[in-house]
């Protein structure tokens, strides 16, 4: 952890209780076995491993955790949660930490990933589903191949007749409405 002086521990660990109550996960029960980090595909690239993220929360090292690259490099693959012997949902905690970090307006340690995420949402907002050109403009590190062949993203229904409906974008206005309502709800609750 990027701390050069000794860790000064406070008798009350607000960060731990905050994370625990918001995720419903019992982080105290982590016994630091490292199985999460051992199986994490991106741990090698993280500044601190998922196990150390858990330990950091146990110690209340809020800044180190919320400013870490680890929370942004986590790809939500669920491997850690699947195997944790203490049945901690680490992936869920990582996800929450990203939210907390953003909510505090911290500059993300992995800027590109965070930017990509918001570019992505921007797309959904505009078109209801992904539009490769739009994303390419918004996110300039685009590899053209990736979205080259994308026509639509079908959620398909089995049964009934095969009836292909041309792509519509009615969804996008719905997304904007949903987003507006989410914002409203969140404003009320905070």
């Amino acid at each position: 952890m990027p701390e050069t002086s000794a860790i000064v521990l406070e008798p009350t660990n607000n960060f731990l209780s905050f994370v625990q109550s918001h995720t419903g996960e019992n982080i105290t029960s982590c016994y630091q076995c490292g199985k999460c980090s051992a199986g994490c595909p991106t741990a090698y690239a993280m500044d601190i491993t998922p196990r150390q993220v858990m330990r950091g929360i146990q110690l209340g090292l809020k800044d180190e955790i919320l400013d870490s690259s680890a929370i942004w490099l986590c790809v939500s693959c669920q491997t850690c949660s699947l195997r944790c012997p203490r049945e901690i949902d680490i992936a869920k905690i990582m996800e929450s930490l990203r939210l907390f970090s953003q909510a505090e307006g911290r500059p993300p340690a992995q800027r590109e990933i965070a930017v990509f995420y918001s570019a992505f949402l921007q797309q959904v907002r505009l078109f209801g589903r992904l539009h490769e050109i739009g994303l390419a403009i918004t996110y300039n590190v685009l590899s053209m191949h990736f979205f080259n062949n994308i026509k639509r993203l079908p959620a398909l229904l089995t049964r009934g007749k095969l009836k292909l409906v041309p792509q519509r974008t009615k969804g996008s206005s719905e997304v904007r409405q949903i987003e507006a309502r989410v914002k409203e709800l969140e404003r009320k609750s905070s």
Partner: protein
Amino acid sequence: MSRIGVFVCHCGTNIGGVVNVPEVVEAARHMPLVAYADANKYTCSEVGQASIRDAIREQRLDRVVIASCSPRMHENTFRRTVAAAGLNPYLLEISNIREHCSWVHSDSKDATAKAIDLVRMAVAKVARHESLLPKQVGLTKRALIIGGGITGIQAALDIASAGHEVVLVEKEPSIGGRMSQLDKTFPTLDCSACILTPKMVDVAQHPNITLLTYSEVKEVRGFVGNFEVDILKKAKMVDYVKCTGCGTCWQACPERIPSEFDMGLGSRPAIYIPFAQAVPNKPVIDIANCRYEKYLKWKETEEGPEPPQCRICEGVCPTEAIDRSQKDEIITEKFGAVVVTTGFKTFDHSVYGEYGGGRYPDVISSLELERLMSAAGPTGGEVLRPSDGSHPKNVVFIQCVGSRDDKVGRPYCSKVCCMYTAKHAIMLREHDHEVQCYVFYIDVRAGGKDFEEFARRAQDETGALYLRGRVSQIYQEGKNLKVLGEDSLIGRPVEIEADLVVLATGMEPSDNADLIAQKLNISYNTYNFLIEAHPKLRPVETQTDGIFVAGTCVGPRDIPDCVAHGGAAAAKVVALLSQDSLTTDPLTSIVDPMKCVGCFACKEVCPFNAIDEQVTRDKRTIASINESLCKGCGLCVVACRPGAVNLRGFTSQQLLSEVLTLVRG
């Protein structure tokens, strides 16, 4: 009319300093039925006890209340005191005015008022006490031991040496248990067979021990001192009187079956002894796999292709010991005590999909490694990879597999695997100096005499690299295995390419441990480990008198602990069997035959199966309580709607009178 005597104790200033003792004595004098009241400085002292005895005689008292310390402290002492004065010892009630009064209240007035209440309640209760006689029942001076591992062997030898008869029931064809599968043993590295075999032979030769191998306990009836047990003796198809154990048959048998003893790494014939030093050293025929038995089965229906009629064993046996007329047989035996030593099995690691789920031949369990290292094992003591028979050079050990893992429902520590992994690391290096061992651990638990030194040896002298972290995944890559872990001390993922991975699989109780427990009416926990009467103070006793437990069926432990445990259980059994009769506590429940309607609500709740059905002379089926089994919990009393059961010493009338005296004043 009763003549009750009340004796109030000062306990120096312990009681007297807070409670106004003279005031309590004075109040007692005016309580109904109280004929005499007095105070004592130290009631439990010889002087104090003498004054009670004198008062009983002089005042012709027929019931006594002593207001003093907790009954848990001196009830038995004072029972003897009143008995010495000729009273029935159960006509005594103790009023706890020290622990429950003077020691917890400081206000003298409140404490005195409370002490008077407590005495009044005791007086009301004692008036309703009856004379009770502890019963004497006879006992069978024989012990049954279920399971012939090292624990059962030790217990059998100790009980037998104390002069009592022992029957040792073992489900396998040989005794020896898991220890017989081990190569060397920590922390001294003695050869397991070398220290175990002499004990096994002692069991076979001891005049007081009857060995019933290939047998199982079917049913248990009765109670302490008087158990009746049905034992199933499975057909061995070999006449042990004629058989000399010459081995001709098992060498000739053409059938090959994976050997249970070698963890499936080797094979055995259909007529077999599990291992060379087996006791008894005589074979059994595995009916399910014997060719001729299959042929006989086939004859019944003639469906499918006809199997060969082998019977080679019969042909070669020089003593004509093969006896196909044998049938499974149930015998009934009587015992005074039972010791359960059914041991353990290792956790089945195939539930760990991330470790290959049992698919990779070179991911083996530690017990399999023991067989590979054993000179008597399938590879003659050479450690060879199961996949291709090559000598592994990079060996990864993973500790805590199936232990300390909520995900697989095994949160407990198996206690021996840190140590045996260290043993394996040391021994692999002894087998082959080029072997590099890697040990993934969470903690190295080496509590025990010479254990830490031993575990250090693995790290200091063999160059084994200990890595702190639990492995997340193993996968096959070409001929080798890729192991993904984290070194949690440096905080980085590590990858190792291994030739062999050894999983230190945890301990769990043998199959059917729960069924055995149910038959014996003893408790077991969620993992089926048997529950002792008290984890610290009564480690080998159970809640059911006369039933004892020892060894790994109670919880994970190593050989030294198993031997100590087996010996401890034996000592308890010997203490029990050395009595000529057993005294039963008379504070049991009793059924009023006139009130009982035969609903058996009582029977349903009784935790000790103490309630039987009984037919009265007028042909009604009613409940009857076996006083030897009843432990006086009183559950039945509350369950009985018509109020036909009552618990001696705590009758419904007594409890009610305590309440009424208290509330009405």
